[in-house]
């Protein structure tokens, strides 16, 4: 091995990636070449010192603070279009209903006026997606679904009130709600979120009919609560 060949293999040697035979050849050359010996010694020392340069530990609490700030940064943008509600809960909560498939972008604010009813047939259960868009995390929130007489949730026959506790994450929380029509009529489903004694509800018109539901009809629509 000559000096040029050693230089070409220096990185592999420093990183311990040279095979035994090549390493032996390189070290044999080092034994007889002072210039290369100095080069390798200095390079090894640089590598060692680079690894020794310390990094201070992350400041306690920084990770969670930074994550919260990042989420809040975007939540504050969203909050812009639901401003004007008096209570903190109202200001931080938007419940929107999207029938059928979710829209790819639900950042746009819900339109004003009365939403068209969700059409459900007697024959086929249909999933409607409740979108709880909250600005900040809501731990142990109680979600309630009050079902009208003309629909039921498959698996809960005859049960008109379904309630449970959950935690809502900042941003969109999608709750797919399967619904099955049991008699022809028009009515309304009420979805509520309750936290710390404050309750907000959304009334969702439901129409049980055999006419074909158009999942895109009237979308996007939603409700502030």
């Amino acid at each position: 091995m000559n000096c040029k060949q050693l230089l070409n293999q220096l990185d592999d040697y420093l990183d311990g990636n040279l095979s035994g035979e090549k390493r032996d050849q390189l070290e044999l050359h080092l034994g007889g070449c002072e210039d290369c010996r100095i080069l390798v010694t200095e390079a090894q020392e640089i590598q060692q010192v680079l690894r020794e340069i310390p990094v201070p530990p992350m400041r306690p609490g920084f990770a969670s603070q930074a994550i919260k700030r990042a989420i809040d940064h975007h939540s504050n943008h969203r909050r812009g279009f639901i401003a004007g509600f008096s209570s903190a809960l109202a200001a931080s909560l938007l419940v929107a209903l999207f029938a059928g498939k979710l829209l790819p972008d639900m950042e746009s604010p819900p339109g004003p006026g009365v939403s068209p009813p969700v059409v459900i047939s007697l024959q086929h259960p249909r999933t409607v997606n409740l979108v709880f868009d909250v600005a900040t995390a809501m731990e142990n929130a109680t979600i309630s679904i009050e079902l009208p007489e003309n629909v039921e949730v498959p698996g809960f026959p005859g049960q008109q009130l379904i309630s449970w506790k959950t935690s809502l994450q900042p941003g969109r929380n999608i709750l797919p709600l399967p619904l099955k029509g049991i008699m022809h009529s028009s009515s309304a489903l009420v979805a509520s979120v309750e936290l710390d004694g404050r309750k907000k509800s959304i009334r969702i018109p439901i129409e049980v009919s055999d006419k074909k539901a158009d999942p895109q009809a009237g979308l996007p629509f939603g409700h502030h609560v």
Partner: protein
Amino acid sequence: MKIGIFSRHRGTGPSFEELVTPHMERLYRLAYRYSGNQADAEDLIQDLLIKLVPRIDELRKVEQLYPWLAKALYRLHIDRFRKSSRNPVDGGYDDYIEHTAGEDPDELFPARLGLIRDLQTALQQLDEEQRALIVMHDMESYTLVELEKILDIPIGTLKSRLHRSRAKLRKLLKEGTVSLQRAC
């Protein structure tokens, strides 16, 4: 309860916090290495998180998240460097090294303190991509296989760049930035 579809993660997956928290310490180390001081490192991490929040659906689909995050951090760092047209460590290295040196006299510090400072000075004179490569490979011990994923650069190219980066670093030190004997 059959209505488990209402689980908070159902349909949305893990939260942003759950996704990134396990990787924060490693990301911070990289950010600190890139920027040289705590304030700039925290600023870089904060910027990264703000950019990532709207991409949560994308994050949820990534199988190996850390390399993906490290790549995003690297690109952000390079972008900031190019936009600012300044060396990102112009703000200077903080005094953490001196602080550490005083804590444990049995450690290599302060015997090597001068050498470390000289190395940091030399590192600042590398171009940013060379410096990032030295940071990730030689200081944070990422393997070339890992860096191939993080940087989207073939291993052969990485080896060539690493070779040139190290040679330049040695040259800068040789030009009088440092006397290695000082460390002995």
